[in-house]
Structures are given as structure tokens and as C-alpha cells.
């Protein structure tokens, strides 16, 4: 399954890129994060992040679908 993952802010810097296409068998958004975290060592616990799929917030246990665009959202600091 192909999933697009976009990175922002600290995760973008840690990953060293803004976007990538992942080939994954992760069944859920949370599983995908754990897979990427194991691969790249973000050092950020999931409980401090939020997930978004296709430009809206998502639960961690949402099932992934081919072509989904996923973002992991570090603690925000707008304003």
C-alpha cells in the first residue's frame, strides 16, 4: 500500500525531508507512525503527537487506505 507522508517543523528536520511515499503494510495510522519511528528514531512519543489523514485530524487507530496522505503533528505553537 502506498501512503504519502508529509513532515512539518521538528519532524521535517528530523526526517530531513518534507514528504515521502511509503510502501507499507501498517494497518493503522498508529502502526505507520511506530514503523517510521523505529526506522528513523524521531524520539517523540505518540502521546505528544496528533495524526492527520487527508487534511483532517484522525484517530491513531484509523485504517490506512491506498493513497492516503498522512501527517504526524508535533505540539503546535502558533500565535
Amino acid at each position, binding site marked *: 500500500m502506498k501512503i504519502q507522508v*508529509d513532515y*512539518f*517543523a*521538528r519532524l*521535517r*528536520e528530523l526526517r530531513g525531508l518534507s514528504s515521502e511515499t511509503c510502501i507499507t503494510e501498517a494497518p493503522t495510522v498508529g502502526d505507520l507512525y511506530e514503523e517510521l519511528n523505529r526506522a528513523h528514531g524521531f*524520539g*517523540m*512519543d505518540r*502521546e*505528544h503527537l496528533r495524526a*492527520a489523514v487527508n*487534511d*483532517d*485530524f484522525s484517530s491513531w487507530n484509523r485504517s490506512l487506505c491506498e493513497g492516503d496522505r498522512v*501527517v504526524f*503533528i*508535533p*505540539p*503546535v*505553537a*502558533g*500565535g
Partner: protein
Amino acid sequence: MFRLQAVPIDCAALNRELAAPGAGALVSFEGRVRNSNEGRSVDRLEYEAYPGLAEREMKRILAEAGERFPLLGLACVHRTGALEIGDVAVWVGALSGHRGEAFEACQFVIDELKHRVPIWKKEHYTDGDAEWVNCARCAEHAGHRHPSTK
């Protein structure tokens, strides 16, 4: 109305645009770049947004404010990119018949924005260090709680 923009925010024009014959009160908020944060001396900032979701979430916040308070106008603009000390990072304007609801709506919008909208701030300190605000602590915290996963 909400927008993200990489150019300076013209607060004067935005305040003028919020107008209605029944409006008795305009409360506006300018969030400006401070020269210090939590005891560290700040040199400049960078803001980064996730535009698709930032716009969607801000529209929800503005709609929620519109349900809670009887408003005649409500708008918000947030900067992205590099900002210097004194620059306006965010502007919120709330227009209403009476002042109470304009104060409440303006404060509601900026409070919710800070908690919910995917915008991030990287502080560059005068000592040369730089950090994504909220995030260093979060990573430390995660490490503290789950040292084996570090």
C-alpha cells in the same frame, strides 16, 4: 475569514475592513514577536504551517465563535516564514454590537488557535541555539517516560 501569509500583516487595513453599521465594538489582538521567551533571549522566529489543516481547523474555530457569540465580523491572519522582534505573527479581529462579546470572541479565537491549529514556531536565540517551541520538552518528556525506547 482566515489566511496564512508569508508577507507582513497589515493590521490597520484589516481593522478597517471589519466594519458594519450596527457595530459598536471592535476588539483586535496582535501577537508580536517578543525578544525573550521563558528566560531565553530571542533573536528571531520562524513559523511553519500545515496549510490544508490549519485553514480547515481555523474555519472550525471561527464557526464555533460565531455560534457562541453574536458577532458582526470575525477574522484572523497568521504569518509564516521568518519574523523579527516586533513583527506581528498573528492578528485577530472581532466585531460586534457590544464590547463584551467582542472581547470574548477575540480571546476565544486566539486561545483555540494556540491549542489546535497546526502551526509551529522555531525560536532562534541570541546565543546561536534554535528550538521548536513545545517540542524539545515533549521529546524530553517522552524520553523520560520511556527511556527504553530512546
